[in-house]
């Protein structure tokens, strides 16, 4: 049994389910009370759970992310909403120095079961506000967190995973950076299993089976890759789409099995190409599937320049056009 919901509704539903299940789960953030968050991801949560489970803060990201760490050390399980992923840059010390290292540095004495929700990215259709929000409201910097040991990093690409991964994140004894693609909030709609649907951390999904080439796609690019697979199927080309879902710890095995089968790999994400997490995936494959690769590994990602405001964003973000070109290049090799 399942229910159709949007990506943002799935996120909201996960909050409700987990806050009902476990009273140590809190929601923290700016404007997460009656407003329900800048994007409305938590609409109704305040009415349901009240001001002792939903904690509002002044605009002080360092102060309130750090407050979440203290609460987590004391046994709460805070879900910390950042209004936009871009804004966490003012508070990265809390994430990189405190949250990520607390367990290791205290020799296991302190756990930090906190979730940091980061609404990231643009609307790749180019439509609406999130398609034109400019350089400081459109970024995808999951790679920074992937390079900060101690953090778990997840990135759901559809409503079912958005719900299941958030529920898993809340239950994790480690801090989880939950990368939610805000351009998909209302454009991604899908079936979400009823009941206690938890998507285990560290498990990739084969979003579509295929045999000629593997596309490892992240976040909003999964949908683009599936569209590409549909298009190329008409030409008799069989594309396998793998969605890592968790970036750290990465399910290398699922990716490697796919690449060993197809012999060709394109990696695509919305983040900038240089130093993006696609590089890590390429490096893993170059090390562990060397013998299977029949062509160069290529990446299709954002160009290495600040995302322009407005429609000009499409000049630097990846899309169906550039992904198609990249895949054809690798197929032609």
């Amino acid at each position, binding site marked *: 049994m399942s229910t159709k919901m949007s990506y943002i509704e799935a996120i909201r539903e996960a909050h409700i389910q987990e806050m009902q299940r476990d009273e140590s789960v809190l929601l923290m953030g*700016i*404007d997460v*009370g*009656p*407003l329900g968050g*800048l994007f409305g991801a938590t609409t109704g949560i305040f009415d349901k759970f009240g001001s002792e489970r939903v904690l*509002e803060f*002044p*605009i*002080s*990201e*360092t*102060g309130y992310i750090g407050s979440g760490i203290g609460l987590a050390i004391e046994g709460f399980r805070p879900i910390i909403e950042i209004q936009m992923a*871009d*804004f966490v*840059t*003012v508070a990265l010390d809390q994430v990189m120095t405190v949250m990520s290292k607390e367990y290791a540095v205290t020799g296991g004495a302190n756990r930090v079961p906190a979730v940091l929700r980061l609404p990231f990215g643009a609307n790749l259709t*180019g439509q609406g*506000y999130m398609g*034109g929000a*400019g*350089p*400081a*409201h459109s970024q995808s910097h999951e790679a920074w967190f992937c390079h900060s040991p101690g953090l778990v990093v997840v990135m759901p690409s559809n409503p079912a995973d958005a719900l299941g991964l958030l529920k898993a994140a809340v239950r994790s004894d480690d801090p989880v950076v939950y990368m939610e693609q805000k351009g998909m909030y209302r454009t991604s709609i899908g079936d979400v299993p009823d009941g206690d649907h938890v998507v285990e951390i560290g498990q990739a999904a084969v979003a579509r089976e295929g045999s000629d080439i593997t596309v490892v796609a992240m976040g909003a690019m999964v949908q683009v890759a599936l569209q590409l697979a549909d298009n190329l199927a008409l030409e008799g080309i069989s594309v396998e789409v793998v969605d890592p879902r968790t970036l750290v710890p990465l399910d290398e095995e699922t990716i490697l099995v796919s690449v060993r089968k197809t012999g060709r790999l394109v990696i695509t994400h919305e983040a900038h190409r240089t130093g993006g997490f696609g590089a890590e995936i390429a490096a893993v494959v170059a090390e562990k599937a060397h013998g299977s690769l029949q062509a160069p590994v290529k990446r*299709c990602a*954002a*160009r*290495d*320049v*600040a995302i*322009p*405001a*407005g*429609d*000009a964003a*499409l*000049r*630097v*973000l*990846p*899309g*169906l*056009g*550039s992904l198609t*070109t990249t895949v054809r290049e690798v197929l032609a090799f």
Partner: protein
Amino acid sequence: MTKALSPLEIYRLVLASRLSEQRITELSKAGELPGHHSGLNHESVGIAVGSSVDFDDCVQTSYRSGAAVMHARGGLTLRELILQGFGLLPGIRAQHPGGARILRSTGILGGQVPTAVGVALSYQLRRKPNVVISVFGDGASNEGAIHECMNIAGVKRLPLIFVVENNGIALSTRGSDSTAAKTLADRGAGYGIPAVTVDGGDAMATYAAMTAAVARTRSGGGPQIIEMKLTRPGEHASVIPDVRSEQEVSDARLVDAVANLRNTLINSGTWDAESDASLIKEFTEIVDAAVDEARQRKANLKPPTDDGLLPEAQVWRMAHASDVPAALQGASR
């Protein structure tokens, strides 16, 4: 030295700002323009700031009063305010490009202010008789960056005036939920900076406070903090619902610097209702014509179609002042 403006001149400026903001706000709420952080009721701040500085001074604008600042400084005519609202001028709405004399805000609250400190420091090092004014909101004032900037300005006695545009609410968070300080001017003592609170509902009071502050700082008096108390008559931005009660919103609307100054002028016999009606008509015609012009120009813009295929060298040029490195020359992607 800027020449002193009469109450009627100030009135013309706040009125023009009001009429352009009103139109842009309406068009945004109607969906024709993207989400807009309306500057309604904030005209008294922007006009005071913009009309108290000289050409070589520097103003760092905020998203609400920025347009008024540029109008008062002569940087943008009423027609241009409308074009800018449509994203057709390089300006605040189009990610604030422009020379150093108007400093952009970065889109991340408080993060822009350290740049203003550096500009003030450059004036001090070069012994230039200029001042920097940084305008930000009560919400931003709780960010750590502002603390560091005020403290540095205090200890280095920089020619820098902090204008805190305190409209009593940050998105959905009321001032009383943001700080227990009685006034934001109370922060001055902690940095050894003189600080005052001014009634933003009185455009002549804000103008007098700003011109006095600029004179004092310009003559070596060091930094100052000016808190301008005003109200926000509408929602935070046109895409975000207002959580306030009807009573709160109608109370907020009562504080109207444009209406207050109009009444003062008329009561003192300097101005009359007929002249006022004709001035409003004159300005409205300019606004109407500018909207028509903007719609036509917008209709003729071509959307980008290249879908992420910019070559590396072009991307480098977009992002860097330095020459394209040899390695990127000739590279396709």
